[in-house]
């Protein structure tokens, strides 16, 4: 898409191997698209984290996409900016990917980002990024949210985002109600432990088949059960059911 929109005035010089301008029409555009997609994905993940109850499936899919992009960028050596030499060595399938990134039949602007496709809660920050990309700045002079400067740092912050998202469900600290349940065992904060104790059926000790759920014989967290019932009772009182 960008490939088609750009003027190919530098095509003649490609064979000369002039690094600075080689492949101007295709590869840097692809890197731009890819960077834009990465930025968009990271923004989405950040927004995920800010939501009350993130949709786990969506988070996982976005995170996987980010990983894919970063892996490819590492392979390209693109973390430190597109080196002209590596541009020359870009294999054919990378060009195919350029087309496929936002495959379109026609139109200069089809693909990412098309302006009016339904409601877009991310319109604000993302369209900023889009403007960067569609301005066709060759050298990323306008810095995107995530600089390509330090790959490790980016990876670290990405990893941190991931952790935060996936741990939201696990260890979200109940600051407001801490006092209320201050005498409660800290292991309850990991709801997972409690539930594992409740169900008990996951442990291999139980008999096979459906008999397992008939009698959960001394599950690991059996003491949790009565306390949890008490917790439920307290909660019920609070919500006045």
């Amino acid at each position: 898409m960008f490939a088609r929109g750009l003027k190919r005035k530098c095509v003649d010089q490609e064979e000369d191997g002039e690094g600075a301008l080689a492949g101007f029409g295709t590869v840097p555009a692809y890197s731009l698209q890819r960077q834009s997609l990465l930025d968009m994905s990271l923004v989405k993940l950040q927004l995920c984290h800010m939501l009350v109850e993130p949709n786990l499936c969506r988070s996982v899919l976005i995170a996987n996409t980010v990983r894919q992009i970063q892996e490819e960028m590492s392979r390209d050596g693109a973390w430190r900016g597109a080196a002209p030499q590596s541009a020359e060595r870009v294999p054919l399938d990378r060009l195919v990917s350029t087309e496929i990134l936002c495959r379109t039949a026609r139109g200069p602007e089809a693909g990412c980002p098309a302006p009016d496709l339904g409601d877009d809660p991310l319109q604000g920050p993302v369209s900023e990024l889009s403007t960067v990309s569609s301005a066709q700045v060759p050298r990323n002079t306008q810095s995107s949210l995530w600089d390509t400067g330090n790959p490790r740092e980016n990876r670290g912050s990405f990893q941190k985002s991931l952790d935060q998202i996936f741990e939201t469900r696990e260890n979200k600290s109940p600051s407001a109600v801490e006092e209320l349940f201050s005498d409660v065992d800290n292991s309850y904060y990991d709801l997972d432990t409690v539930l594992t104790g409740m169900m008990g059926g996951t442990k291999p000790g139980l008999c096979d088949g459906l008999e397992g759920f008939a009698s959960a014989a001394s599950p690991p967290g059996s003491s949790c059960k009565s306390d949890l019932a008490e917790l439920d009772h307290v909660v019920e009182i609070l919500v006045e059911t």
Partner: protein
Amino acid sequence: IFSFSFFFFLNNSFAPLVTIVGALQGNNSDIISTVEFNHTGELLATGDKGGRVVIFQREQESKNQIHRRGEYNVYSTFQSHEPEFDYLKSLEIEEKINKIRWLPQQNAAYFLLSTNDKTVKLWKVSERDKRPEGYNLKDEEGRLRDPATITTLRVPVLRPMDLMVEATPRRVFANAHTYHINSISVNSDYETYMSADDLRINLWNFEITNQSFNIVDIKPANMEELTEVITAAEFHPHHCNTFVYSSSKGTIRLCDMRASALCDRHTKFFEEPEDPSNRSFFSEIISSISDVKFSHSGRYIMTRDYLTVKVWDLNMENRPIETYQVHDYLRSKLCSLYENDCIFDKFECVWNGSDSVIMTGSYNNFFRMFDRNTKRDVTLEASRENSKPRAILKPRKVCVGGKRRKDEISVDSLDFSKKILHTAWHPSENIIAVAATNNLYIFQDKVN
């Protein structure tokens, strides 16, 4: 809130449809989130974002009004789930009904399961058309009588009253899911059912609410390593030991509960090899399966991913036997659809009673039907503007590029906020229910 009584003419050549329509508008909490016929097709249940369940009942056929045969009218409305607050995590739990599943009818009452993100409830819907009168200790208004005034004893009698349909919660299955419940499925033994969330599947007995048996657990020890979630699950219609679950990586696993208590190792693994020519950064996202349904025969499963519907033979794991393109024109728009989050929309898919036609929704209030035998397909639109009473619904067409014919709509004009995610097909007749945001459309085959 809802609309009813459309008629369509559907034979294997997909002739145009006839419609009769009446519809009302609602607000945000009226957005329909699930639609399901019961096993006879007499009842149709819908769940919405506000936690309400509305049940429609089919009118008895009348010889006088052939053309009004079998309209669906509201039978019962009740609040199934309320918004809750999880104090341990400081998170709100939405009351939106994710799924409704009916139990087969075993007596005069109807039973259904309804679930939100965390809690499954068993509801009993029963009719009351008689009431006892002539109590000894209470008067007609229910006030206690002064015992001193009671001089005789009488036996209360049942007298007819206006039909009242009441819904009562009979079981509440709570506190068994850390993650969001996406599916429930009643087992063919009618004694158990399963509930699936993003990472786990639990097996319940209808009589026991304080315990469930965990049968699938794909949660990694380290959540940072999480790359795949469960997206849908269903029991086999006849074999009570067999179920399938789909994943966000486009795979389906069939499990046999006789093999082991924890079905983490599948019996069969269905995955189509990736087409290298179609590979993009969005490949994984669009391969994520949003719905999986067994055929009524139990021989096939149907899966829905973002752009296609696939039919798989249970005996062949390495690729589907049929693939249908729902809206392939969106393939070039994936970037935009990723940006506005539409790429994460979860469409459902349904079989007709004879497993010969499959149906699924799309955008712009379009829905698609595919005839597996003739390989013909049709795109229809659920909209009030285009439906007049007794009019024929025209098949719609999306024009991809180049010249747009008069009745066609171009891809860029599609309204992506109008999505049909939930549809249902009557178990034996050609009657379909289509949920378009907060409107319900019921289409019925017009005979002759």
